[in-house]
């Protein structure tokens, strides 16, 4: 069982995983995960490779539905309307309209910078040029990319540098006003300067949106997140405020991982 220790327990929840298990065919990748996600906070998931952090993250936008043989058990209660994201009655497309995602490797579409950001609006049926123009500009500004690309919005997204491409992907994920943003190791393909700019961006974004981030980099989790969860072989070992988890972990396993004795 996990222990949840918190001083600020009054914070509103954005989502809550309840007894979440996940299976790739017959392989159980997540075992009874329980975890709260607090609204407008950054929650990071750490743990060694293969521990199930990405698998867990991808449950939130039902990414596993794209591949046959995957199965969820348990529930993710999404606030404020208490939708169970994993319910078979819930359309994964509706889920993805509310929860956006940024991937490990920047994956801009083979389109212009403008069209990359406008994509989410277009698939929602938005066609008014003025609305799209405004949203694209706002998203690019929020992603700290507007100044660099405002004069070349019609250039291909792939022409940008790696760090700019990742910020473009963040802009794409922001343009549709998501309630929750998922980041799957967003800086692992980037150099330290680009990483710093993305980290700064995430810290700014939490004013507007709840963020769940998977990271391989413990310093990154310590720098940017309010809450940290340590996972190991499909289980949630410890969850708590980031300072508490890093300075005074409750579990021996967490301490071993954080201090580098393991992993």
């Amino acid at each position, binding site marked *: 069982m996990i222990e949840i220790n918190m001083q600020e327990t009054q914070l509103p929840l954005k989502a809550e995983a309840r007894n979440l298990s996940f299976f790739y065919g017959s392989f159980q990748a997540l075992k009874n995960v329980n975890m709260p996600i607090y609204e407008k906070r950054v929650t990071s998931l750490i743990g060694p490779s293969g521990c199930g952090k990405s698998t867990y993250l991808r449950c939130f936008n039902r990414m596993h539905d794209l591949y046959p043989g995957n199965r969820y058990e348990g529930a993710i209660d999404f606030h404020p309307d208490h939708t169970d994201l994993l319910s078979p009655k819930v359309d994964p497309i509706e889920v993805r309209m509310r929860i*956006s995602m940024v991937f490990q490797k920047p994956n801009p579409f083979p389109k212009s910078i403008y069209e990359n950001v406008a994509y989410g609006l277009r698939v929602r049926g938005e066609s008014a040029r003025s609305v799209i123009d405004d949203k694209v500009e706002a998203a690019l500004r929020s992603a700290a990319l507007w100044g660099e690309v405002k004069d070349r919005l019609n250039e291909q997204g792939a022409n940008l540098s790696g760090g700019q491409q990742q910020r473009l992907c963040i802009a794409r994920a922001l343009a549709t006003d998501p309630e929750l943003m998922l980041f799957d190791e967003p800086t692992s393909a980037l150099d330290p300067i680009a990483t710093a700019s993305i980290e700064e961006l995430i810290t700014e974004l939490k004013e507007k949106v709840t963020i769940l981030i998977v990271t391989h980099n413990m310093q990154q989790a310590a720098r940017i997140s309010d809450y940290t969860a340590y996972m190991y072989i499909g289980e949630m070992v410890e969850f708590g405020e980031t300072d508490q988890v890093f300075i005074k972990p409750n579990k021996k396993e967490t301490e071993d991982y954080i201090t580098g004795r393991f992993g």
Partner: protein
Amino acid sequence: MPQPSDRLKKDFSRHFKERVIEAILFLAAFLSVFTTTAIVYILVKESWIFFQHVPLTDFLFDTQWTPLFDDAHYGIMVLLSGTITSSMVALLVAIPLGTIIAIYLSEFAPFSIREIAKPFLELLGGIPTIIYGYFALLFVTPLLQKVFPELPGFNLLSAGMVMGVMIIPYVASLSEDAMRAVPMALREGSYATGATRLQTALRVVVPAATSGIAAAYILGISRAVGETMILAVAAGMQPNLTFNPAEPGATITSFIVQVALGDLPHGSIGYQTIFAAGLTLMLLTLVFNLIGFYMRKKYREVY
């Protein structure tokens, strides 16, 4: 234990073997280049003889093609119109259907269906074209005549349609390969924004695979332009300057068959025409290949 100085010496037997293998590989590569060059040389040389008797302007602008008559006319436009009309009909069938099949197989079909459907599709491309020809003449034309009773027994429409069916597998299979080569990360990026499968397929996968799909279309066009048997059997081999598919017509290829089968004396102008026609055909496919090459370069995607 060999000393370093030994190892630095040339190993002559290995060196010799390498040279032999290199020579064999070079010969294999040279043979194909040589063959192509030789074909072009002969086509140009024989066409040169033809063009000494027939002015180029007649060849390009004359509206009659009657090389076997006493009053001979050599207007290639007549044959070209047959080739273009039948190819257009074929492409109107093959490009939409081939693309839809490719999108279905790549983006929608479950694994089990794809594994069955793709070999069948490729089998369609392995049917000898003479069989398609008879199919057009004896099955499709009578069927079309039920709808359009005035349709002649030989016509470009049914030949073109069946040719389109023949080309579908090439277009579908190559387009599908191009779409499947689009990285999963792009699809996931699209789905993650809330896109449906169809939106992902049409707005992300197809644009990302443009260069491969364009190459598939160009190959389809080249096959349509170069196809012989179906047209020789079902389209009537009557030179006819028309862009109306409901009429009979001869294409460049079917004319070459006709003359090559006939009893034209060597060295006569009539005989020489097939080289001029062959050269035209080759230039035509060369143009399409160049367009294909250009499209691939222009739309090549870096993932």
